[in-house]
Protein backbone atom coordinates (compact mmCIF):
# COMPACT_ATOMS: atom_id res chain seq x y z
CA UNK A 1 0.00 0.00 0.00
CA UNK A 2 2.80 2.52 0.50
CA UNK A 3 3.84 1.36 -2.92
CA UNK A 4 1.99 3.83 -5.08
CA UNK A 5 2.75 6.76 -2.86
CA UNK A 6 6.42 6.21 -3.21
CA UNK A 7 6.92 5.22 -6.79
CA UNK A 8 7.45 8.70 -8.08
CA UNK A 9 9.93 9.63 -5.38
CA UNK A 10 11.88 6.46 -5.91
CA UNK A 11 11.75 6.90 -9.64
CA UNK A 12 13.22 10.34 -9.28
CA UNK A 13 15.92 8.97 -7.07
CA UNK A 14 16.77 6.26 -9.53
CA UNK A 15 17.08 8.79 -12.26
CA UNK A 16 19.39 10.80 -10.05
CA UNK A 17 21.59 7.77 -9.52
CA UNK A 18 21.63 7.06 -13.19
CA UNK A 19 22.67 10.63 -13.85
CA UNK A 20 25.48 10.41 -11.39
CA UNK A 21 26.74 7.38 -13.24
CA UNK A 22 26.48 9.27 -16.44
CA UNK A 23 28.60 12.03 -15.01
CA UNK A 24 31.21 9.43 -14.25
CA UNK A 25 31.01 7.71 -17.63
CA UNK A 26 30.79 10.80 -19.74
CA UNK A 27 33.14 12.59 -17.38
CA UNK A 28 36.09 10.69 -18.75
CA UNK A 29 35.08 11.45 -22.29
CA UNK A 30 34.38 15.10 -21.68
CA UNK A 31 37.65 15.40 -19.81
CA UNK A 32 39.48 13.81 -22.72
CA UNK A 33 37.68 15.84 -25.35
CA UNK A 34 38.29 19.02 -23.44
CA UNK A 35 41.98 18.31 -22.98
CA UNK A 36 42.28 17.30 -26.63
CA UNK A 37 40.55 20.54 -27.62
CA UNK A 38 42.91 22.60 -25.52
CA UNK A 39 45.85 20.66 -26.91
CA UNK A 40 44.71 21.12 -30.48
CA UNK A 41 44.44 24.82 -29.88
CA UNK A 42 48.01 25.33 -28.76
CA UNK A 43 49.62 22.53 -30.77
CA UNK A 44 49.95 23.41 -34.44
CA UNK A 45 49.37 20.44 -36.70
CA UNK A 46 47.70 18.47 -33.96
CA UNK A 47 44.50 17.69 -35.80
CA UNK A 48 45.95 15.61 -38.58
CA UNK A 49 46.36 12.09 -39.79
CA UNK A 50 50.04 12.31 -38.94
CA UNK A 51 49.35 12.85 -35.25
CA UNK A 52 46.98 9.93 -35.19
CA UNK A 53 49.52 7.84 -37.04
CA UNK A 54 52.25 8.79 -34.55
CA UNK A 55 50.04 8.11 -31.60
CA UNK A 56 48.85 4.75 -32.83
CA UNK A 57 52.27 3.60 -33.93
CA UNK A 58 53.71 4.58 -30.57
CA UNK A 59 50.72 3.09 -28.77
CA UNK A 60 51.11 -0.17 -30.65
CA UNK A 61 53.47 -2.03 -28.30
CA UNK A 62 51.81 -0.61 -25.19
CA UNK A 63 48.39 -1.61 -26.45
CA UNK A 64 49.36 -5.15 -27.36
CA UNK A 65 51.10 -5.69 -24.05
CA UNK A 66 48.24 -4.06 -22.17
CA UNK A 67 45.73 -6.39 -23.82
CA UNK A 68 47.66 -9.36 -22.48
CA UNK A 69 48.07 -7.63 -19.15
CA UNK A 70 44.31 -7.12 -18.98
CA UNK A 71 43.81 -10.88 -19.00
CA UNK A 72 46.60 -11.39 -16.48
CA UNK A 73 45.15 -8.81 -14.14
CA UNK A 74 41.69 -10.15 -14.60
CA UNK A 75 43.00 -13.46 -13.29
CA UNK A 76 44.23 -11.62 -10.21
CA UNK A 77 47.87 -11.72 -11.29
CA UNK A 78 50.41 -9.29 -12.62
CA UNK A 79 53.19 -9.60 -15.17
CA UNK A 80 56.17 -7.30 -14.94
CA UNK A 81 58.25 -9.43 -17.28
CA UNK A 82 56.46 -8.18 -20.39
CA UNK A 83 59.31 -5.90 -21.43
CA UNK A 84 61.87 -8.66 -21.04
CA UNK A 85 59.69 -11.00 -23.08
CA UNK A 86 59.51 -8.40 -25.83
CA UNK A 87 63.28 -8.30 -25.75
CA UNK A 88 63.61 -12.08 -25.85
CA UNK A 89 61.23 -12.38 -28.78
CA UNK A 90 62.96 -9.52 -30.56
CA UNK A 91 66.37 -11.03 -29.92
CA UNK A 92 65.35 -14.48 -31.15
CA UNK A 93 63.81 -13.06 -34.29
CA UNK A 94 66.76 -10.78 -34.86
CA UNK A 95 69.24 -13.56 -34.32
CA UNK A 96 67.39 -15.92 -36.65
CA UNK A 97 67.04 -13.20 -39.24
CA UNK A 98 70.70 -12.27 -39.21
CA UNK A 99 71.61 -15.91 -39.63
CA UNK A 100 69.51 -15.91 -42.80
CA UNK A 101 66.62 -17.98 -41.52
CA UNK A 102 64.18 -15.98 -43.60
CA UNK A 103 61.40 -13.67 -42.52
CA UNK A 104 58.61 -16.09 -41.62
CA UNK A 105 60.73 -18.53 -39.58
CA UNK A 106 62.34 -15.62 -37.73
CA UNK A 107 59.01 -14.15 -36.74
CA UNK A 108 57.63 -17.56 -35.80
CA UNK A 109 60.73 -18.32 -33.74
CA UNK A 110 60.34 -15.09 -31.80
CA UNK A 111 56.70 -15.76 -31.06
CA UNK A 112 57.50 -19.29 -29.96
CA UNK A 113 60.19 -18.00 -27.60
CA UNK A 114 57.71 -15.55 -26.12
CA UNK A 115 55.15 -18.29 -25.62
CA UNK A 116 57.71 -20.41 -23.79
CA UNK A 117 58.45 -17.55 -21.41
CA UNK A 118 54.73 -17.31 -20.69
CA UNK A 119 54.61 -21.02 -20.04
CA UNK A 120 57.45 -20.65 -17.58
CA UNK A 121 55.67 -17.80 -15.78
CA UNK A 122 52.36 -19.60 -15.70
CA UNK A 123 53.81 -22.87 -14.47
CA UNK A 124 55.76 -21.32 -11.64
CA UNK A 125 52.80 -19.25 -10.57
CA UNK A 126 50.17 -21.96 -10.63
CA UNK A 127 52.16 -25.07 -9.86
CA UNK A 128 54.72 -23.77 -7.41
CA UNK A 129 52.41 -21.15 -5.97
CA UNK A 130 55.00 -18.41 -6.15
CA UNK A 131 53.63 -14.90 -6.23
CA UNK A 132 53.20 -13.56 -9.76
CA UNK A 133 55.18 -10.43 -9.06
CA UNK A 134 58.19 -12.43 -7.91
CA UNK A 135 58.08 -14.95 -10.74
CA UNK A 136 57.80 -12.24 -13.33
CA UNK A 137 60.46 -10.20 -11.57
CA UNK A 138 62.83 -13.12 -12.00
CA UNK A 139 61.95 -13.33 -15.68
CA UNK A 140 62.24 -9.57 -15.97
CA UNK A 141 65.81 -9.65 -14.68
CA UNK A 142 67.08 -12.96 -16.05
CA UNK A 143 65.04 -12.70 -19.23
CA UNK A 144 66.64 -9.47 -20.28
CA UNK A 145 70.02 -11.06 -19.68
CA UNK A 146 68.92 -14.04 -21.72
CA UNK A 147 67.77 -11.82 -24.56
CA UNK A 148 71.18 -10.22 -24.80
CA UNK A 149 72.89 -13.57 -24.55
CA UNK A 150 70.78 -14.84 -27.42
CA UNK A 151 71.60 -11.82 -29.50
CA UNK A 152 75.26 -12.14 -28.54
CA UNK A 153 75.82 -8.40 -28.71
CA UNK A 154 74.06 -5.36 -27.41
CA UNK A 155 72.40 -4.42 -30.64
CA UNK A 156 71.91 -5.58 -34.19
CA UNK A 157 70.77 -3.54 -37.14
CA UNK A 158 69.12 -4.49 -40.42
CA UNK A 159 69.55 -2.71 -43.67
CA UNK A 160 66.82 -0.33 -44.74
CA UNK A 161 65.53 -2.59 -47.47
CA UNK A 162 65.73 -5.88 -45.60
CA UNK A 163 62.46 -7.76 -45.55
CA UNK A 164 62.15 -7.39 -41.76
CA UNK A 165 62.44 -3.62 -41.97
CA UNK A 166 60.07 -3.56 -44.93
CA UNK A 167 57.59 -5.54 -42.83
CA UNK A 168 57.72 -2.87 -40.17
CA UNK A 169 56.93 -0.13 -42.69
CA UNK A 170 54.40 -2.20 -44.61
CA UNK A 171 50.99 -0.79 -45.36
CA UNK A 172 47.80 -2.75 -45.95
CA UNK A 173 45.21 -0.80 -47.90
CA UNK A 174 46.94 2.40 -46.88
CA UNK A 175 46.97 1.48 -43.23
CA UNK A 176 50.27 0.82 -41.47
CA UNK A 177 50.58 -2.84 -40.60
CA UNK A 178 50.76 -1.97 -36.90
CA UNK A 179 47.30 -0.45 -36.99
CA UNK A 180 45.92 -3.49 -38.78
CA UNK A 181 47.46 -5.84 -36.22
CA UNK A 182 46.15 -3.62 -33.45
CA UNK A 183 42.59 -3.77 -34.76
CA UNK A 184 42.85 -7.53 -35.17
CA UNK A 185 44.23 -8.01 -31.68
CA UNK A 186 41.52 -5.86 -30.10
CA UNK A 187 38.83 -7.73 -32.02
CA UNK A 188 40.29 -11.04 -30.97
CA UNK A 189 40.49 -10.07 -27.32
CA UNK A 190 36.96 -8.71 -27.37
CA UNK A 191 35.79 -12.00 -28.74
CA UNK A 192 37.78 -13.97 -26.19
CA UNK A 193 36.53 -11.92 -23.26
CA UNK A 194 32.92 -11.78 -24.32
CA UNK A 195 32.43 -15.21 -25.78
CA UNK A 196 34.78 -17.85 -24.49
CA UNK A 197 34.71 -20.26 -21.60
CA UNK A 198 38.38 -19.52 -21.09
CA UNK A 199 37.72 -15.88 -20.21
CA UNK A 200 34.99 -16.82 -17.76
CA UNK A 201 37.35 -19.21 -16.06
CA UNK A 202 40.01 -16.52 -15.88
CA UNK A 203 37.54 -14.11 -14.35
CA UNK A 204 36.39 -16.71 -11.85
CA UNK A 205 39.97 -17.39 -10.77
CA UNK A 206 40.53 -13.68 -10.32
CA UNK A 207 37.33 -13.19 -8.39
CA UNK A 208 37.64 -16.09 -5.96
CA UNK A 209 40.41 -18.63 -6.59
CA UNK A 210 39.25 -20.92 -3.83
CA UNK A 211 35.74 -21.13 -5.25
CA UNK A 212 37.18 -21.59 -8.73
CA UNK A 213 39.06 -24.65 -7.54
CA UNK A 214 35.93 -26.06 -5.98
CA UNK A 215 33.82 -25.71 -9.12
CA UNK A 216 36.43 -27.70 -10.94
CA UNK A 217 38.13 -25.07 -13.02
CA UNK A 218 41.56 -26.21 -14.15
CA UNK A 219 43.50 -23.46 -12.46
CA UNK A 220 46.87 -24.71 -13.56
CA UNK A 221 46.02 -24.84 -17.23
CA UNK A 222 44.00 -21.65 -17.26
CA UNK A 223 46.69 -19.66 -15.48
CA UNK A 224 49.34 -21.00 -17.80
CA UNK A 225 47.22 -20.06 -20.80
CA UNK A 226 46.73 -16.53 -19.49
CA UNK A 227 50.45 -15.94 -19.19
CA UNK A 228 51.16 -17.61 -22.51
CA UNK A 229 48.57 -15.43 -24.21
CA UNK A 230 50.07 -12.33 -22.64
CA UNK A 231 53.58 -13.35 -23.65
CA UNK A 232 52.59 -14.05 -27.22
CA UNK A 233 51.11 -10.59 -27.49
CA UNK A 234 54.33 -9.21 -26.00
CA UNK A 235 56.33 -11.19 -28.52
CA UNK A 236 54.36 -9.75 -31.41
CA UNK A 237 54.85 -6.28 -29.95
CA UNK A 238 58.56 -6.88 -29.59
CA UNK A 239 59.07 -8.28 -33.07
CA UNK A 240 57.05 -5.53 -34.70
CA UNK A 241 59.02 -2.93 -32.84
CA UNK A 242 62.22 -4.50 -34.13
CA UNK A 243 60.77 -4.47 -37.61
CA UNK A 244 59.68 -0.85 -37.32
CA UNK A 245 62.97 0.50 -35.99
CA UNK A 246 65.09 -1.77 -38.15
CA UNK A 247 67.19 -3.00 -35.28
CA UNK A 248 67.26 -4.94 -32.06
CA UNK A 249 68.56 -3.44 -28.86
CA UNK A 250 68.01 -6.27 -26.42
CA UNK A 251 68.99 -4.17 -23.43
CA UNK A 252 66.49 -1.43 -24.14
CA UNK A 253 63.67 -3.08 -26.06
CA UNK A 254 60.46 -2.84 -24.06
CA UNK A 255 62.15 -1.48 -20.96
CA UNK A 256 59.63 0.01 -18.51
CA UNK A 257 56.73 -0.90 -20.78
CA UNK A 258 55.22 -2.89 -17.90
CA UNK A 259 54.48 0.35 -16.11
CA UNK A 260 52.76 1.90 -19.12
CA UNK A 261 50.80 -1.27 -19.75
CA UNK A 262 49.65 -1.62 -16.17
CA UNK A 263 48.72 2.04 -16.12
CA UNK A 264 46.69 1.54 -19.30
CA UNK A 265 44.84 -1.40 -17.79
CA UNK A 266 44.15 0.54 -14.61
CA UNK A 267 42.92 3.59 -16.48
CA UNK A 268 40.70 1.22 -18.40
CA UNK A 269 39.07 0.07 -15.20
CA UNK A 270 40.14 -3.56 -14.87
CA UNK A 271 40.59 -4.14 -11.18
CA UNK A 272 43.92 -5.05 -9.62
CA UNK A 273 42.31 -7.71 -7.51
CA UNK A 274 40.97 -9.59 -10.50
CA UNK A 275 37.55 -9.81 -12.05
CA UNK A 276 36.04 -8.44 -15.20
CA UNK A 277 38.48 -7.74 -18.06
CA UNK A 278 37.66 -4.44 -19.77
CA UNK A 279 39.14 -4.46 -23.23
CA UNK A 280 37.74 -1.14 -24.45
CA UNK A 281 38.94 0.59 -21.34
CA UNK A 282 42.40 -0.83 -21.87
CA UNK A 283 42.43 0.42 -25.45
CA UNK A 284 41.64 3.94 -24.30
CA UNK A 285 44.20 3.74 -21.52
CA UNK A 286 46.85 2.47 -23.90
CA UNK A 287 46.24 5.32 -26.32
CA UNK A 288 46.14 8.08 -23.70
CA UNK A 289 49.65 7.40 -22.45
CA UNK A 290 51.49 7.67 -25.79
CA UNK A 291 49.20 10.54 -26.73
CA UNK A 292 50.53 12.49 -23.80
CA UNK A 293 54.07 11.70 -24.95
CA UNK A 294 53.21 12.81 -28.47
CA UNK A 295 51.75 16.07 -27.21
CA UNK A 296 54.77 16.65 -25.00
CA UNK A 297 57.09 15.91 -27.91
CA UNK A 298 55.21 18.10 -30.36
CA UNK A 299 55.34 21.03 -27.98
CA UNK A 300 59.01 20.49 -27.25
CA UNK A 301 58.30 19.99 -23.61
CA UNK A 302 61.36 19.27 -21.54
CA UNK A 303 61.66 15.67 -20.49
CA UNK A 304 61.14 16.28 -16.80
CA UNK A 305 58.25 18.62 -17.42
CA UNK A 306 56.73 15.93 -19.62
CA UNK A 307 56.95 13.53 -16.69
CA UNK A 308 55.01 15.91 -14.47
CA UNK A 309 52.54 16.56 -17.28
CA UNK A 310 51.96 12.83 -17.71
CA UNK A 311 51.42 12.36 -13.99
CA UNK A 312 48.90 15.17 -13.86
CA UNK A 313 46.95 13.81 -16.84
CA UNK A 314 46.85 10.26 -15.49
CA UNK A 315 45.74 11.40 -12.05
CA UNK A 316 43.20 13.72 -13.63
CA UNK A 317 41.65 10.98 -15.74
CA UNK A 318 41.46 8.66 -12.77
CA UNK A 319 39.98 11.26 -10.48
CA UNK A 320 37.21 11.85 -12.99
CA UNK A 321 36.44 8.19 -13.51
CA UNK A 322 36.88 7.08 -9.91
CA UNK A 323 34.43 4.63 -8.48
CA UNK A 324 33.37 5.20 -4.93
Amino acid sequence: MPNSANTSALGAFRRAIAQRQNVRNYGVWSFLLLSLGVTAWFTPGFLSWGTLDNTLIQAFPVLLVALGMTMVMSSGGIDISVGAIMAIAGAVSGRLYTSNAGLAPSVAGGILAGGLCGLFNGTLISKFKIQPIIVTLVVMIAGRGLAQTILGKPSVSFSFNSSLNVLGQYKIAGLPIQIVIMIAAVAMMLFVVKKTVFAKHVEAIGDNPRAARLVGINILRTTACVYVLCSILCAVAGIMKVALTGGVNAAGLGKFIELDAIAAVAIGGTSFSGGRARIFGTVIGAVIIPLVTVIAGMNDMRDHHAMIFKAVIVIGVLLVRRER
Partner: protein
Amino acid sequence: SCNRGASASKGKSVAYSSPGDANGWFLAFSSELKKEAEKRGYSFSVTHAQQNTARQLSDVEDIIAQKPTFLILGPKDTKASADALRTARKAGVPVIVVNRDINGEHGADYITKIYSDFEWIGEKMAQAVREAFPADKKTIRIVEIHGTLGSANTTGMSKGIRKVIDNDARMELVRSQPGNFQRDVAMAAMENIIQSGVEFDAVICHYDDEAMGAIQALTRKGRKMGNDPSRGEIIIVGNGGTTVGLEAVKAGKYHKIVSVTPYYADKVFEAIEAHLAGKKLDPYIRVDDIVIDKNNVDKHMATGF
Protein backbone atom coordinates in the same frame (compact mmCIF):
# COMPACT_ATOMS: atom_id res chain seq x y z
CA SER B 1 108.73 -3.73 -23.27
CA CYS B 2 106.35 -6.67 -23.32
CA ASN B 3 108.66 -8.61 -21.11
CA ARG B 4 109.10 -5.89 -18.58
CA GLY B 5 105.33 -5.52 -18.43
CA ALA B 6 104.86 -9.17 -17.64
CA SER B 7 107.21 -9.09 -14.70
CA ALA B 8 105.69 -5.86 -13.39
CA SER B 9 102.23 -7.36 -13.53
CA LYS B 10 103.06 -10.56 -11.69
CA GLY B 11 100.16 -11.43 -9.34
CA LYS B 12 98.62 -8.03 -9.83
CA SER B 13 94.91 -7.57 -10.29
CA VAL B 14 92.98 -4.78 -11.93
CA ALA B 15 89.29 -4.19 -11.48
CA TYR B 16 87.15 -1.94 -13.62
CA SER B 17 84.00 -0.35 -12.27
CA SER B 18 81.93 0.40 -15.34
CA PRO B 19 79.06 2.84 -14.98
CA GLY B 20 77.29 1.43 -17.97
CA ASP B 21 74.84 -1.16 -19.08
CA ALA B 22 74.77 -3.29 -22.18
CA ASN B 23 75.67 -0.53 -24.52
CA GLY B 24 77.98 -1.22 -27.42
CA TRP B 25 80.48 1.35 -26.32
CA PHE B 26 80.91 0.08 -22.80
CA LEU B 27 81.15 -3.48 -24.01
CA ALA B 28 83.83 -2.60 -26.48
CA PHE B 29 85.69 -0.59 -23.85
CA SER B 30 85.68 -3.29 -21.20
CA SER B 31 86.60 -6.00 -23.64
CA GLU B 32 89.52 -3.85 -24.80
CA LEU B 33 90.62 -3.45 -21.19
CA LYS B 34 90.34 -7.18 -20.69
CA LYS B 35 92.39 -7.95 -23.78
CA GLU B 36 95.03 -5.48 -22.77
CA ALA B 37 95.15 -6.84 -19.22
CA GLU B 38 95.57 -10.39 -20.46
CA LYS B 39 98.25 -9.31 -22.87
CA ARG B 40 100.17 -7.71 -20.06
CA GLY B 41 99.52 -10.49 -17.57
CA TYR B 42 97.18 -8.84 -15.09
CA SER B 43 94.14 -10.54 -13.73
CA PHE B 44 91.08 -8.52 -14.60
CA SER B 45 87.47 -8.21 -13.48
CA VAL B 46 84.64 -5.82 -14.22
CA THR B 47 81.45 -4.65 -12.50
CA HIS B 48 78.56 -2.93 -14.25
CA ALA B 49 76.64 -0.24 -12.38
CA GLN B 50 73.79 -0.18 -14.91
CA GLN B 51 73.72 3.62 -14.93
CA ASN B 52 72.99 3.78 -11.23
CA THR B 53 75.21 5.89 -8.99
CA ALA B 54 74.37 4.17 -5.73
CA ARG B 55 75.01 0.81 -7.37
CA GLN B 56 78.41 2.01 -8.53
CA LEU B 57 79.47 3.15 -5.08
CA SER B 58 78.49 -0.28 -3.77
CA ASP B 59 80.38 -1.97 -6.60
CA VAL B 60 83.51 -0.06 -5.72
CA GLU B 61 83.18 -0.98 -2.06
CA ASP B 62 82.82 -4.63 -3.03
CA ILE B 63 85.84 -4.42 -5.29
CA ILE B 64 87.95 -2.73 -2.67
CA ALA B 65 87.01 -5.39 -0.12
CA GLN B 66 88.79 -7.84 -2.42
CA LYS B 67 91.90 -5.68 -2.38
CA PRO B 68 92.84 -5.34 -6.05
CA THR B 69 96.11 -3.74 -7.03
CA PHE B 70 94.43 -1.11 -9.20
CA LEU B 71 90.98 0.27 -9.66
CA ILE B 72 89.90 1.61 -13.02
CA LEU B 73 86.94 3.81 -12.30
CA GLY B 74 84.45 4.95 -14.92
CA PRO B 75 82.38 7.35 -12.82
CA LYS B 76 78.65 7.42 -13.42
CA ASP B 77 78.40 10.97 -12.17
CA THR B 78 81.07 13.58 -11.89
CA LYS B 79 80.09 14.64 -8.39
CA ALA B 80 77.97 11.86 -6.99
CA SER B 81 80.49 9.14 -7.79
CA ALA B 82 83.30 10.95 -6.03
CA ASP B 83 82.75 8.93 -2.87
CA ALA B 84 84.25 5.95 -4.71
CA LEU B 85 87.60 7.73 -4.71
CA ARG B 86 87.43 8.10 -0.94
CA THR B 87 86.72 4.38 -0.53
CA ALA B 88 89.72 3.49 -2.66
CA ARG B 89 92.02 5.98 -0.99
CA LYS B 90 91.13 4.66 2.45
CA ALA B 91 92.11 1.17 1.36
CA GLY B 92 95.23 2.41 -0.40
CA VAL B 93 94.16 1.24 -3.85
CA PRO B 94 95.37 3.51 -6.64
CA VAL B 95 92.73 4.68 -9.11
CA ILE B 96 92.78 5.48 -12.79
CA VAL B 97 89.73 7.47 -13.86
CA VAL B 98 88.31 6.70 -17.29
CA ASN B 99 85.20 7.45 -19.39
CA ARG B 100 84.40 10.84 -17.86
CA ASP B 101 85.40 13.43 -15.32
CA ILE B 102 85.16 13.14 -11.56
CA ASN B 103 85.68 15.55 -8.70
CA GLY B 104 88.84 14.66 -6.88
CA GLU B 105 92.41 15.58 -6.20
CA HIS B 106 95.11 14.53 -8.57
CA GLY B 107 97.77 12.51 -6.85
CA ALA B 108 95.83 11.90 -3.69
CA ASP B 109 92.62 10.52 -5.17
CA TYR B 110 93.70 9.30 -8.57
CA ILE B 111 96.77 8.73 -10.67
CA THR B 112 95.35 10.24 -13.81
CA LYS B 113 92.14 10.70 -15.78
CA ILE B 114 91.83 9.37 -19.31
CA TYR B 115 88.75 9.98 -21.41
CA SER B 116 87.20 11.65 -24.40
CA ASP B 117 86.27 15.27 -23.99
CA PHE B 118 82.49 15.32 -24.42
CA GLU B 119 82.30 19.07 -24.56
CA TRP B 120 84.80 18.98 -27.38
CA ILE B 121 82.72 16.32 -29.10
CA GLY B 122 79.63 18.50 -28.77
CA GLU B 123 81.48 21.45 -30.28
CA LYS B 124 82.76 19.29 -33.12
CA MET B 125 79.25 18.03 -33.88
CA ALA B 126 77.86 21.54 -34.04
CA GLN B 127 80.77 22.65 -36.20
CA ALA B 128 80.20 19.69 -38.52
CA VAL B 129 76.64 20.87 -39.00
CA ARG B 130 77.75 24.41 -39.74
CA GLU B 131 80.30 23.23 -42.28
CA ALA B 132 77.66 21.23 -44.12
CA PHE B 133 75.84 24.39 -45.17
CA PRO B 134 77.00 27.04 -47.59
CA ALA B 135 78.22 30.23 -45.99
CA ASP B 136 75.33 32.22 -47.42
CA LYS B 137 72.71 30.09 -45.68
CA LYS B 138 70.89 32.54 -43.41
CA THR B 139 69.61 30.24 -40.72
CA ILE B 140 70.57 26.74 -39.79
CA ARG B 141 67.78 25.24 -37.74
CA ILE B 142 68.92 22.36 -35.60
CA VAL B 143 67.12 19.58 -33.77
CA GLU B 144 68.94 17.90 -30.91
CA ILE B 145 68.15 14.34 -29.85
CA HIS B 146 69.95 14.07 -26.56
CA GLY B 147 70.95 11.23 -24.27
CA THR B 148 69.65 10.23 -20.89
CA LEU B 149 68.73 13.26 -18.86
CA GLY B 150 71.34 14.06 -16.25
CA SER B 151 74.09 11.75 -17.45
CA ALA B 152 77.53 13.32 -17.63
CA ASN B 153 78.17 12.69 -21.32
CA THR B 154 74.76 14.09 -22.26
CA THR B 155 75.49 17.15 -20.21
CA GLY B 156 78.93 17.55 -21.74
CA MET B 157 77.78 17.22 -25.33
CA SER B 158 74.81 19.55 -24.79
CA LYS B 159 77.15 22.14 -23.40
CA GLY B 160 79.54 21.89 -26.33
CA ILE B 161 76.76 22.08 -28.87
CA ARG B 162 75.28 25.17 -27.25
CA LYS B 163 78.66 26.83 -27.01
CA VAL B 164 78.95 26.78 -30.78
CA ILE B 165 75.32 27.60 -31.53
CA ASP B 166 75.22 30.52 -29.09
CA ASN B 167 78.27 32.05 -30.73
CA ASP B 168 76.85 31.83 -34.24
CA ALA B 169 73.92 34.05 -35.11
CA ARG B 170 72.95 31.82 -38.02
CA MET B 171 72.53 28.72 -35.96
CA GLU B 172 69.38 28.10 -34.02
CA LEU B 173 68.35 25.18 -31.81
CA VAL B 174 64.67 24.63 -32.59
CA ARG B 175 64.01 21.41 -30.69
CA SER B 176 65.72 19.30 -28.06
CA GLN B 177 64.13 16.02 -27.09
CA PRO B 178 65.35 12.91 -25.28
CA GLY B 179 66.43 9.80 -27.16
CA ASN B 180 67.96 8.09 -24.13
CA PHE B 181 70.75 6.73 -26.37
CA GLN B 182 68.18 4.36 -27.82
CA ARG B 183 66.96 3.81 -31.31
CA ASP B 184 63.24 3.45 -30.59
CA VAL B 185 63.00 6.35 -28.17
CA ALA B 186 64.81 8.58 -30.63
CA MET B 187 62.58 7.41 -33.46
CA ALA B 188 59.41 8.31 -31.53
CA ALA B 189 60.88 11.67 -30.52
CA MET B 190 61.82 12.43 -34.12
CA GLU B 191 58.37 11.48 -35.39
CA ASN B 192 56.75 13.80 -32.89
CA ILE B 193 59.05 16.63 -33.83
CA ILE B 194 58.30 16.16 -37.52
CA GLN B 195 54.61 16.06 -36.77
CA SER B 196 54.75 19.30 -34.83
CA GLY B 197 55.48 20.97 -38.15
CA VAL B 198 58.66 22.70 -37.07
CA GLU B 199 61.11 23.37 -39.91
CA PHE B 200 64.65 22.12 -39.46
CA ASP B 201 67.77 21.61 -41.53
CA ALA B 202 69.88 19.37 -39.35
CA VAL B 203 69.70 16.85 -36.56
CA ILE B 204 72.37 16.30 -33.94
CA CYS B 205 72.22 13.01 -32.07
CA HIS B 206 74.16 12.12 -28.96
CA TYR B 207 74.67 8.55 -30.12
CA ASP B 208 74.66 6.51 -33.33
CA ASP B 209 71.66 4.47 -32.23
CA GLU B 210 69.67 7.66 -31.84
CA ALA B 211 70.74 8.71 -35.30
CA MET B 212 69.50 5.39 -36.66
CA GLY B 213 66.14 6.00 -34.99
CA ALA B 214 66.01 9.51 -36.45
CA ILE B 215 66.80 8.18 -39.90
CA GLN B 216 64.01 5.58 -39.59
CA ALA B 217 61.54 8.26 -38.55
CA LEU B 218 62.55 10.64 -41.34
CA THR B 219 62.32 7.86 -43.89
CA ARG B 220 58.93 6.81 -42.60
CA LYS B 221 57.66 10.35 -42.84
CA GLY B 222 59.01 10.71 -46.39
CA ARG B 223 61.94 13.03 -45.70
CA LYS B 224 65.31 12.83 -47.37
CA MET B 225 68.61 12.87 -45.58
CA GLY B 226 72.17 12.98 -46.81
CA ASN B 227 75.09 15.29 -47.41
CA ASP B 228 73.63 17.95 -49.65
CA PRO B 229 71.29 20.48 -48.09
CA SER B 230 70.72 22.16 -51.43
CA ARG B 231 68.77 19.10 -52.52
CA GLY B 232 66.55 19.34 -49.47
CA GLU B 233 68.49 16.68 -47.66
CA ILE B 234 68.57 16.89 -43.90
CA ILE B 235 72.00 16.80 -42.35
CA ILE B 236 72.42 14.27 -39.57
CA VAL B 237 75.45 14.42 -37.33
CA GLY B 238 76.08 12.26 -34.34
CA ASN B 239 78.49 10.89 -31.83
CA GLY B 240 79.62 7.28 -31.76
CA GLY B 241 81.50 5.08 -34.16
CA THR B 242 79.45 1.92 -34.12
CA THR B 243 79.57 -0.39 -37.12
CA VAL B 244 75.95 0.44 -37.82
CA GLY B 245 76.70 4.13 -37.78
CA LEU B 246 79.74 3.79 -40.02
CA GLU B 247 77.69 1.82 -42.53
CA ALA B 248 75.06 4.54 -42.56
CA VAL B 249 77.77 7.13 -43.26
CA LYS B 250 78.97 4.97 -46.10
CA ALA B 251 75.43 4.69 -47.41
CA GLY B 252 75.23 8.46 -47.45
CA LYS B 253 72.39 8.84 -44.98
CA TYR B 254 74.43 9.88 -41.98
CA HIS B 255 76.50 12.97 -42.63
CA LYS B 256 79.25 12.83 -40.04
CA ILE B 257 80.20 10.99 -36.88
CA VAL B 258 82.36 12.53 -34.22
CA SER B 259 83.91 9.46 -32.74
CA VAL B 260 84.05 8.59 -29.09
CA THR B 261 86.63 5.92 -29.21
CA PRO B 262 86.60 2.98 -26.82
CA TYR B 263 90.09 2.01 -27.95
CA TYR B 264 92.34 3.46 -25.31
CA ALA B 265 92.95 0.48 -23.07
CA ASP B 266 96.65 0.68 -23.93
CA LYS B 267 96.81 4.21 -22.57
CA VAL B 268 95.19 3.04 -19.36
CA PHE B 269 97.67 0.25 -18.84
CA GLU B 270 100.58 2.42 -19.83
CA ALA B 271 99.51 4.74 -17.08
CA ILE B 272 99.31 1.87 -14.64
CA GLU B 273 102.78 0.72 -15.50
CA ALA B 274 104.19 4.19 -15.41
CA HIS B 275 102.77 4.51 -11.93
CA LEU B 276 104.31 1.20 -10.94
CA ALA B 277 107.61 2.46 -12.28
CA GLY B 278 107.25 5.40 -9.93
CA LYS B 279 106.55 8.05 -12.57
CA LYS B 280 104.21 10.93 -11.91
CA LEU B 281 101.51 11.38 -14.55
CA ASP B 282 99.59 14.38 -15.81
CA PRO B 283 96.18 14.88 -14.20
CA TYR B 284 94.39 14.45 -17.53
CA ILE B 285 95.29 12.42 -20.56
CA ARG B 286 93.07 13.28 -23.46
CA VAL B 287 91.76 10.61 -25.75
CA ASP B 288 91.85 11.76 -29.32
CA ASP B 289 88.63 11.59 -31.19
CA ILE B 290 88.15 12.14 -34.86
CA VAL B 291 85.49 13.18 -37.28
CA ILE B 292 84.40 10.46 -39.67
CA ASP B 293 82.64 11.25 -42.91
CA LYS B 294 82.09 9.76 -46.33
CA ASN B 295 85.72 10.34 -47.33
CA ASN B 296 87.46 8.52 -44.52
CA VAL B 297 84.81 6.07 -43.46
CA ASP B 298 86.36 3.11 -45.25
CA LYS B 299 89.59 3.60 -43.40
CA HIS B 300 87.82 3.47 -40.06
CA MET B 301 85.33 0.75 -40.87
CA ALA B 302 87.32 -1.82 -38.92
CA THR B 303 87.16 0.27 -35.77
CA GLY B 304 83.37 0.03 -35.59
CA PHE B 305 82.09 -1.42 -32.34
